[in-house]
């Protein structure tokens, strides 16, 4: 495997690491973390670096620990619908290993050629699969990690139902490499549906939202539902202000019937399933991305007409894709947080994040607990200090 190590791939908000460790096994990760503890250095762990900049810039950044070469399938038992893989395995490599047996890991974070299994869990990656398959952590059943003090630790197991002690595997979800470095995951798998069809409707923005709402409320088992607006819609080949995208999967007869019902609700045309790769790549490739989410009963105060965004109405989540001025963002964040929503800067300059009062907004975890977790798992603060609240 010869992926060249490019220091710029590891740059975060203009900071570059003094050194790069390219780990190929768990011992490399243990050594790197122990070394950092001894030298008082700070480490940032990365996989495919598709969401490396999410979060506040680390307080210090001495060493990049790149896990993209820690890859490969360790064990795959199709009869159990379970596979154990190294954390740096890309989603594409995983999909390729599972497809011959008609199985998949139903998580769709975008840029599958780069995005890794470990990074997907560590960053609680979103995407269209959230509608039917929910959170990436729902598809992970066991882990090996290295704690911030260099201790390798195993959690969970190889069975799909497990309450043998604390569910640390899922606790690692969304911790962005600040508590542990994930080195291996055991995944729960599902069957690739017999048929998958994607439909797109060219609509104006209000009609797109109204139709999406109706589709979701119908209770029909949609596989994915998205609205893409502004020039992002144009980039997908849409002909209106907004593209409403639906994916239907299942046995052929079920997909045919769902297609009929959807066509009764909206004028639409078939589109290649690959359109979802483009949709999921948008938030990862924009110069500026904010993830906003709101309680379903409320409406976010965002004018989507003429503004590029990827919206997942079934999950009340949107990715805003063009920088807005800081004051406007501040008002948006305040209005969302006032009703229990969030506005997280996923891609923005260090200055923008700082002026906004941080990448995350108001933390929703008691800070005493967040700090205690950080102190217990990473006592010397070597893992991306300052990236997460707490």
């Amino acid at each position, binding site marked *: 495997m010869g992926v060249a190590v490019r220091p710029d791939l590891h740059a975060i908000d203009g900071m570059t690491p003094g050194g790069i460790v390219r780990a190929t096994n768990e011992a490399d990760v243990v050594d790197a973390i122990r070394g950092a503890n001894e030298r008082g250095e700070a480490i940032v762990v990365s996989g495919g670096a598709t969401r490396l900049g999410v979060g506040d810039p680390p307080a210090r950044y001495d060493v990049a620990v790149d896990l993209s070469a820690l890859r490969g399938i360790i064990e795959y*038992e*199709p*009869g*159990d619908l379970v596979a154990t893989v190294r954390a740096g395995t890309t989603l594409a490599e995983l999909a390729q290993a599972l497809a011959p047996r008609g199985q998949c890991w139903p998580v769709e974070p975008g840029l599958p050629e780069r995005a890794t299994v470990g990074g997907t869990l560590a960053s*609680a990656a*979103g995407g269209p699969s959230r509608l039917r398959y*929910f959170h990436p952590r*729902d598809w992970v059943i066991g882990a090996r990690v290295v704690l911030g003090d260099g201790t390798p630790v195993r*959690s969970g*197991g*190889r*069975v*799909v*139902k*497990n*309450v043998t*002690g*604390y*569910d*640390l595997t*899922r*606790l690692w979800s*969304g911790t962005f490499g600040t508590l542990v470095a994930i080195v291996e995951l055991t995944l729960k798998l*599902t*069957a*690739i549906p*017999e048929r998958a069809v994607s439909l797109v409707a060219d609509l104006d923005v209000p009609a797109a939202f109204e139709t999406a709402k109706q589709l*979701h*409320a119908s*209770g029909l*088992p949609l596989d994915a539902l998205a609205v893409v607006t502004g020039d992002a819609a144009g980039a997908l080949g849409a002909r209106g202000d907004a593209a409403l995208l639906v994916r239907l999967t*299942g*046995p052929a*007869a*079920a997909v*045919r*019937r769902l297609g009929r019902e959807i066509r009764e609700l909206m004028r639409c045309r078939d589109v290649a399933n690959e359109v979802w790769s483009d949709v999921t790549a948008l938030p990862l490739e924009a110069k500026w991305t904010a*993830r906003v*989410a*709101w*309680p*379903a*009963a409320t409406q976010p105060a965002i004018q989507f007409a003429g503004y590029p965004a990827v919206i997942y109405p079934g999950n*009340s*989540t949107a990715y805003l894709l063009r920088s807005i001025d800081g004051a406007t963002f501040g008002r948006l964040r305040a209005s969302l947080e006032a009703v*229990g929503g*969030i506005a997280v800067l996923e891609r923005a300059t260090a200055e923008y994040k700082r002026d906004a009062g941080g990448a*995350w*907004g108001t*933390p*929703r*975890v*008691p800070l005493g*607990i*967040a700090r205690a*977790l950080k102190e*217990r798992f990473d006592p010397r603060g070597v893992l991306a200090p300052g990236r*997460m*609240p*707490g």
Partner: protein
Amino acid sequence: MRRLIEICGDENVFWRPEDLLVWEYDAGFDRRPPTAVAVPGTAEEVAAVVQAARAAGATIVPRGAGTGLSGGTIACADAIVVATTRLRSIVSIDRAARVAVVEPGVTNLAVSVAAREHGLFFAPDPASQKISTIGGNAGTNAGGPHALRYGSMVNHVLGIELVLPSGEIAMFGGAVADVPGFDCVPLIVGSEGTLGIITKVWLRLLPLPEDVRTFVAIFADIDSGARAASAIIATGVVPAAMEMLDKVTIGALNAAFEVHLPEDAGSLLLVEVEGLNEETEDWAAAIVRVLKKNGATDVRSAATQAERELLWKARKLGYAALARIKPNNYLHDAVVPRTKVPEVLREVNAIAERYGYIIANMFHIGDGNLHPVLLFDARTQPVDRVMEASAEILKVALNAGGALSGEHGIGLEKNHFMFWVFGPEDLDAQRRARDAFDPDGTMNPGKIFPGGDACADIPTERTKRALAEGMWV
């Protein structure tokens, strides 16, 4: 005590020995009376009780309906039991968001019934669902038959309001996805009351399926039924539920209910698929093909809703029906990889035979979650020996790559066996998580983690330790 009465009211605090009798056991085997029981009526009262206990140096055991099977709610040392059964309001159901907000004392079934009015359902359905509470379900990461397709509580709890061991009321997660900060919800689910007391829960609801098909496949023996179940999973068509009932169970169910299951069957599989009509038709046909190919002598469909409900009633009350055979039983909850189910079942049944116990198997075969029930009469047969057989069963499951518990929890029943699964560093990592919440160990001491002495005076404790340490008694 006076402080507890001030907080909760005289009628909601119990301390007289005769009043404590009903609080000294759960649905498992161990018993021990608490010092006192408080049943607060609001989250604020829960917080005040925790603060009062803390000030008095007492420990706390959170408790729902007491249907747990692993001693998780048994009070050890000087513990006060805090029951959440008065916190039983369904706060809201949001149809558009598919979220229910409920208090922890609401029963599992009450959530399902309320959701149904909105065209939705709540997926986890433990057999105890009529009486077990959402708080207890979350505490043990309960599952139930339909966990096969939909997952356990951890996959359906979106947010938790928790009274921390400090007495502070804190919020984790919620209806909005991926809120900033560490996501402690999956840590709290399944933590068996060791991190705090749940006072409110945000639950995911799902749209009711258009069609449900339930059928029963008959097999000559356990082995062929188990192999058929493995073959179904291997096709990737995951049924909503797939349960195995063995001959002993079938006999008990027929005696207790009018289910008319075939008495001569060696085992049967109860299989359910849910979805659009077109989906259930396709999946049912595929599953029936696999069942027949793998030796099903007969496959019968539940023709009516009433028939379907009767089958599930029999399944869910089956545990109680086993009391017709022997007055006592010892039930385990090990999980094994699905491909290993046939061989593990053979070994489990051989262990029971070697010890001379009648064994009943009625379990979630689709996700490899065994429930071997050893039937015995505690008046004449020592429980120590049953526990010894059970420990052997656990060992077989673990050797096959399994886990100690799929949905019941570790409690004080299996904590010493945690060494069989995890190394010292792995357990220490779990302790670090607990210490982040409860550095003084005041919440449910003596549970989950092995090696502690908080529950040392429980009669079965010595046996369990000896078994776990490999010193057969």
